[in-house]
Every structure is written in structure tokens, then in C-alpha cells.
């Protein structure tokens, strides 16, 4: 995110700071002028502090306390135990540590596959809808609908589709196509992972589509004309014009999608009705369930903080690598 937000700032700063017309008009308001932006920002800053920054700091503090069910009513009585929560939850030889590690691998596989497929569908749709034709506007609206639906409405519908005895999926696979003799379960067991993945792709790919569509609008048509004159076919134009031009969008889009799916709670929570089978036990659900099942908020916070640290490291490495590669090309 950092690169995308600071880069436009830098562009904007120059003409404005140097604009001679503005300076004199504003100067008489000396002291007010310097305070005003902070007053304007104050509500946003207070809210961000209250709901995001302070809870985060409190969360780190909680992860250092023995904040179990005995102390949850009055957390001032919870004893300070240092890194004990981290040691207990991240100890890969313990049962809790093994479950967390399992959940981590499931989440990683889920995020990578979900982002990959969402991007693939998004780019396909954006490219084939690039040139105008009859019905394009309708298709575009249709493709955006899964993203516009409230997540619970979308996921509940999918859980109906995936019911073993009354769902569409088994009706088509077993009754109409006869591909299987047994009606498989989709929401428990090994299949639950793939169900979760399909639902997540269905819901997320329109966001990729939206961003890539916005990105394609900035690709000058002359580039395609020039490529076509040079005899470039469809795949060549895609590889040499479209994808390089979309690089800045892709950099941000892939990271954002990855972070969202890695933190995904809604899809498994609604799809599996509050609990997830072990094969689809995403990390957010895992922390949520272990925190509220045992009311051990101390170790829940420790796992959340570890999750945040992991994502910060991944984001930092990602931004570092992509930035370096950009410098190499320049």
C-alpha cells in the first residue's frame, strides 16, 4: 500500500507548493492556517486512535497477560506472564501449536489459490470486455454483482447450493450428469476446502475485475494499434502491452487481495455456520473459536499479534522485492 499512496502525493506536492497564486491569498491567515488542517483531521484521527490504534496496543498488552476465563470479568487482576502465551501457542510440539500450524498452512494455500484464480478471472473478463460491443454494460454490471452482494447473503446462498441432499451441486453432479454414485459432502471433510475456495473466488474476482478494468482504461489505444501494425497477435499484445501497463495495478491488487483473503473470516464463518471443519480452518476462525470457546483472550491475542507480524513481514518483503525489480527495469 505504501508505494501507491506516497507516489501520487509526491506528484501532487510540487505544483501546489510552488503555486505562486495561492501563497499570497492565504498568508494573512498565518496561525489559523497552520492549525486548520489538524482541526479538520481531528475527528478522523480520534476515531482511528480509539478503534484501531489503542485496541492494537491493548491487544499487544493482553497477549502478555494470563487473561483466561478467571480474569476476563476484571482484567486488572490478570497476572503479567511475559511471553508465556506466545511460547504456549507457538510451541509446535504441543497440540495447540500443531493445530495453529495446520491452520496456517490451510490459510496460506487458501489465500494463494484464491488470489490466483480471482486475478485470472478478473484479467480475463477485463481483457475481453475491453473493446465495446452490444451487451457489454450488462455483462459488466452482472460480473460486479457478487462483490456488491452482502457477504452473508452470497455465502448463505452458496451453502444452500452445496447442501448434500438438497443442493444444486450434487443434483447436477450426481442426478443429472451421473458423475458420482455417492452424494459427496461438500461442507465437511476434505471437500470443504475446495468449497471454501470456490465461494471465495466467486466473491473476490469482481474486485480484481473492477481494479483491472480501471487500470485498462489508462492504457492508450495507440499502443495496441502500433502492436497490431507490427503483426502482434492476441497473446503477444497481452504479454507486451497489457500486462506491463497493468503492472502498477497488479502490484497493489495482488497484495491487497492476499491480505484480505489471509484474514478472511466471513466466508468460512457463514459457509460452515460458525465453525469450520479442520480442512478449512482458516486462521481468523481458528483464533476466534479458540478465544471464545475457552475465553482465553491472552493466547488469542498472542496468536493475533503473531499473525499481524507475519503479514507485516510478508508485505515488507513483497514491497521490497517489487520495488527493487522496478529499479532494475528503470
Amino acid at each position, binding site marked *: 500500500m*505504501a508505494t*501507491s499512496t506516497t507516489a*501520487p*502525493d509526491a*506528484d501532487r*506536492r510540487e505544483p501546489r*507548493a510552488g*503555486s505562486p497564486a495561492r501563497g499570497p*491569498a492565504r498568508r494573512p491567515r498565518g496561525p489559523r492556517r*497552520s492549525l*486548520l488542517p489538524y482541526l*479538520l*483531521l481531528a475527528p*478522523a*484521527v480520534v*476515531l*482511528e486512535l*480509539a*478503534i*484501531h490504534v489503542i*485496541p*492494537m496496543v*491493548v*491487544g499487544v498488552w493482553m497477549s502478555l497477560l494470563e487473561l483466561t476465563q478467571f480474569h*476476563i470479568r476484571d482484567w486488572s487482576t490478570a497476572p503479567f506472564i511475559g511471553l508465556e502465551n506466545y511460547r504456549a501457542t507457538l510451541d509446535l510440539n504441543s497440540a495447540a501449536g500443531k493445530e495453529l500450524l495446520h491452520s496456517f498452512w490451510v490459510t496460506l494455500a487458501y489465500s494463494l489459490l484464491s488470489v490466483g484464480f480471482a486475478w485470472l478471472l478478473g484479467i480475463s*473478463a477485463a481483457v475481453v470486455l475491453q473493446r465495446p460491443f452490444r451487451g457489454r454494460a450488462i*455483462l459488466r*454490471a452482472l460480473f460486479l454483482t*457478487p462483490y*456488491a*452482494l*452482502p*457477504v*452473508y*447473503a452470497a455465502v*448463505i446462498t452458496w451453502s*444452500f*447450493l452445496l447442501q448434500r441432499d*438438497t443442493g444444486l451441486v450434487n443434483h447436477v453432479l450426481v442426478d443429472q450428469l451421473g458423475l458420482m454414485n455417492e452424494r459427496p459432502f461438500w461442507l465437511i471433510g476434505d471437500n470443504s476446502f475446495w468449497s471454501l475456495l470456490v465461494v471465495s473466488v*466467486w466473491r473476490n474476482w469482481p474486485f480484481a475485475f473492477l*481494479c483491472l*478494468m*480501471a487500470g485498462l*482504461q489508462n492504457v492508450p489505444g495507440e499502443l495496441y494499434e502500433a502492436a*497490431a501494425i507490427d503483426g502482434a497477435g492476441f497473446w503477444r499484445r497481452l504479454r507486451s502491452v497489457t500486462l506491463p501497463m497493468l503492472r*502498477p*495495478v497488479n502490484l497493489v491488487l495482488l497484495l491487497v487481495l492476499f491480505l*484480505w483473503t*489471509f*484474514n478472511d*473470516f*466471513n466466508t468460512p*464463518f457463514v459457509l460452515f455456520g*460458525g465453525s469450520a471443519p479442520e480442512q478449512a480452518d482458516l486462521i*481468523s476462525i481458528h483464533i*476466534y473459536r479458540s*478465544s471464545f470457546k475457552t475465553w482465553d483472550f491472552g493466547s488469542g*491475542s498472542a496468536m*493475533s499479534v503473531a499473525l499481524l507480524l507475519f*503479514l507485516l513481514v510478508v508485505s515488507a518483503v513483497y514491497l521490497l522485492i517489487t520495488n527493487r525489480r522496478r529499479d532494475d527495469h528503470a
Partner: protein
Amino acid sequence: MRETAGERWGRRIVLTLLALFVVIPLYVMVTSAAKPLQDVQNGFTWWPSRPTLQPFVDMWSTVPLARYLVNSLVVSSIAAVCSVAVAIFAAFAVSRYRFRGRGVFTVTVLSTQMFPGILFLLPLFLIYVNLGNATGIELYASRTGLVITYLTFSLPFSIWMLVGYFDSIPRGLDEAAQVDGAGPLRTLFQVILPAAVPGVVAVTVYAFMTAWGEVLFASVMTDEGSRTLAVGLQGYSTQFNVYWNQIMAASLVVSIPVVVGFLALQRYFVAGLTAGAVK
């Protein structure tokens, strides 16, 4: 540049597959909402054996859907309006002023959007409960608590998108207003906001959608009295029956307003993304 036959067929195939993938669940939602109960209790059918609007009537009494709906409407509307009001001032500051901490503010606010929700959930839960016990301010299990929480969820993206919109409004307009003696706030309300109406509307809809669809905090921070649709809609499965037809009817009803709003304004979301992300 002409399209080859191969490209045309490729396009048709890709579009057909994508359209089917998207449409099938939507089709099931709409048709199942018009099915009698026995249709959804036995094997799946593509079409209702006897189309009926009864699920749309029954869904209000199986669960207290009206209460959930009112809660969601109240919480989402207030959160959206407050969020946009706060975002307008913040975006005005970021777009029109140079000040110390501007870059830090933008990056910090946007990065909170990427953090795991579960990280805020446990501390916020404890803070709300303990604040209630200590001072009597009811934030846990109240609509106020939800409003405050939700309005911060949409704030980062709202600010970001509005900064893009405000930046696209020529500064010459500001200066003309100032020459006429308008102060900064009058400039904001009489010059910038009227020119940014589509952006403000789009951001309001986005903030409303964010609150309308939130599940994680709703599942923990509400009780029976303050429950929103996000949690309430899961109440249609009883011990004896799962009223899939009513669930689909209720899902349809709660989806239509946000889907219509989003699709009507999609142009402005694309414009906002283009202005912000691509640069």
C-alpha cells in the same frame, strides 16, 4: 484494429463461462425464494413446483427479521453518514493543505484497512465491556458501539477516494472563492462539495455497504436486541427445519438495495480507483 474470428470466439466462450459461474447462484437465490417449503426439503429442483410468494410473507415471523432489518438500517445509515462527514473534512485537509504528518496520516489510516479484524476484536470487546461496567456507557451489545466501530471501517477508503475527487477539482475555483472573501469552510461547502457530489454519493454507498455486510464484529458485539442482518439471517435453521426458501427470500430482500446502489454508481467507483490506484 480488427478482431479475428479466433478472438471473437474466445471472447464468447470466456464470457459465457464467467456469466454462468456468476449467474447460477443468483438464479438459485431468486427461484428458491419462490419455492414452497417441500421443494427445498427434498432434492433440488431448477424451477418451483408451484411458484409462490409465501416465503416473502413467512420470513418475517420465522425470525424477528423486521427487528434485524431496522437494526441494520439504523446502524448502517448512521455509520455511513458519520463516516462520510468525517472523511470529507479529512480529505479536504489532505487535498488542500501541506502540513507535517500528512504522509504518515495517509499511510497509517490506509494500512489499518489491511490488518486482521480479529486483532481488534478481542481488545475492543474487552474495552467495550469494561467501559460499560466502569462508566455505564453502553457500547457492548448496543447499536451505538456498532456505529462507532463500523464508521472507522469505511473511513480509510472513503478518505482515499475523496482525496482523489477533491484533487481533480481545479484549485482556481478555491482561489476565486477566497478572492470573494470565503473562508476555508465556506470554500469546502460552497465550491468543492457541490463539484464532488458523485464522489460523495459513491463513498456514502460504499460506507453503507461496508456496515451492512459486516459479520465478524456483529457476531460478537450484538445481543438479541441489537442483532443485525449479518447474524440474524443465520437463524432460519431450527432443530426441525431449515427454511431455505425463506432464507433465500430474506437474502434477496436485503441484497437488492445495496446491489442496486452499487451498480448504479459503479462508474464512480471505477473513476475513484482509476484516480487513486493507477497513478
